[in-house]
């Protein structure tokens, strides 16, 4: 069986794609189906993709300030539309303060630069397993 389905998105005008591509490969090799939507995503496009694809985890890759603006909107939208997939944020420019703020918004996990691959895979696996159990697709 697959480990889970994961959406991978980059927000707004953030141009940095290498990190997201690396994570996509990492998760593919760990047995995930990665729905890669890439750059120029907004909360509403992420919502649509998450619903249509019935993903277990929503992954946001950020190497630019966009997440500070968009994450509150995204979390509110997902809550309003009752999308139960947890959100994971990863990127190189997230400060400790930011991470706290994001967690307070309901982001399930935040990974800064230097995070170990195994830790990322383990965390996302646990979130996906939990969500698949709730969805009945486990």
């Amino acid at each position, binding site marked *: 069986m697959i480990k889970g389905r994961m959406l991978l998105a980059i927000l707004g005008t953030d141009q940095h794609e290498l990190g997201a591509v690396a994570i996509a490969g990492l*998760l593919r090799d760990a047995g995930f189906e990665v729905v890669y939507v*890439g750059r120029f995503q907004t909360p509403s496009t992420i919502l649509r993709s998450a619903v*249509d*694809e019935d993903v277990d985890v929503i992954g946001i890759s950020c190497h630019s300030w966009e997440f500070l603006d968009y994450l509150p909107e995204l979390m509110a939208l997902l809550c309003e539309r*009752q999308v139960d997939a947890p959100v994971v944020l990863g990127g190189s420019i997230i400060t400790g303060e930011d991470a706290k703020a994001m967690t307070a918004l309901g982001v399930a996990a935040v990974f800064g630069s230097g995070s170990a691959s195994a830790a990322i895979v383990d965390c996302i696996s646990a979130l996906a397993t939990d969500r698949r*159990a709730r969805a*009945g697709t486990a």
Partner: protein
Amino acid sequence: MRGPGRREVTGGAQGEVASPDWPALLTGVARGDRRALSRMISLVEARVPGWQEAMHQVFMATGKARVVGITGSLGTGKSTLTGRLAAIFAGRGRRVGILAIDPSSPFSGGAILGDRIRMTELDRLGVFLRSMATRGAHGGLSRATRDAVRILDAFGFDLILVETVGAGQDEVDVLRVADVTLVLCVPGQGDGLQAIKAGMMEIADVFIVNKADRSGADQVVADIDAMLRITRVAAEGHLAPAVVKTVATAGAGVEELADAIESRLSAAGGGRITGVGEIAMEVVELVEARLREGFWNDFGARERLDRLVAGGGDPYFICRDILPDDVFDELFAAARIRLPPD
């Protein structure tokens, strides 16, 4: 069939798995609830217990949608063109759903599903797009593509676009679901279209020469025309194959392509997916999958296999150990009692 390294992982210490509320999902799909639609596809794709009864219900609500298959080698522009076609058909008032298939890794079972990045216009048009990984299927579709087509049909989509994996010569399963099949070619694929001559040559209702702004496009068109003149006539109820040039990234030629598809949909009629031959093949596949999964998962056969292989046995000996003749005979004796021949 599963690739090497793929294992069913069941049980374990994780929390309790929720049972699907199939009646609520079926009602949701009938009512046009998109979340019910996408969840139902997930559950059927995962073969969660109850799925066949649910699909039986779904089947009775199908029959209105038309299915267009889009296939061709990797990098020919299938996703971009599928997005363009979806936008045009949505603009013409059709309710469009897309199933986009990408390959599962034979090693990890994972996949990168990248078709959405080529179909960025769809959000505002209300087009539904679902990415599916092949999950061990080899014919260019995923194992649950036919089921997903039917769920989309029951939901109310009247035009379903099925985009295959980047396909070679022999991955022609799309023929079995699509009322009209499109085969993409691009300039530079080889003289005389070596890549598609055999299997794919025979399944196209429309040949598309994409990336037609590149040099050599007219030669590809000429090669296809020449082949069409010397090979078969159109299948019964099908118009002769058309050849259309497009530049999918710029949208050039796509309106003409949509017209060619519309006329062929009218000529072909619907219901390829419910043809007698197709249904028979599908039942054979479902029964075989059931037997295969039951055998390997329920009797500890997989563990026995691993142990014997690790012990260095040869395949013929191990096969007879895992499935001895008397066990095989007993299995079939039980089936014969329960299911006497007509």
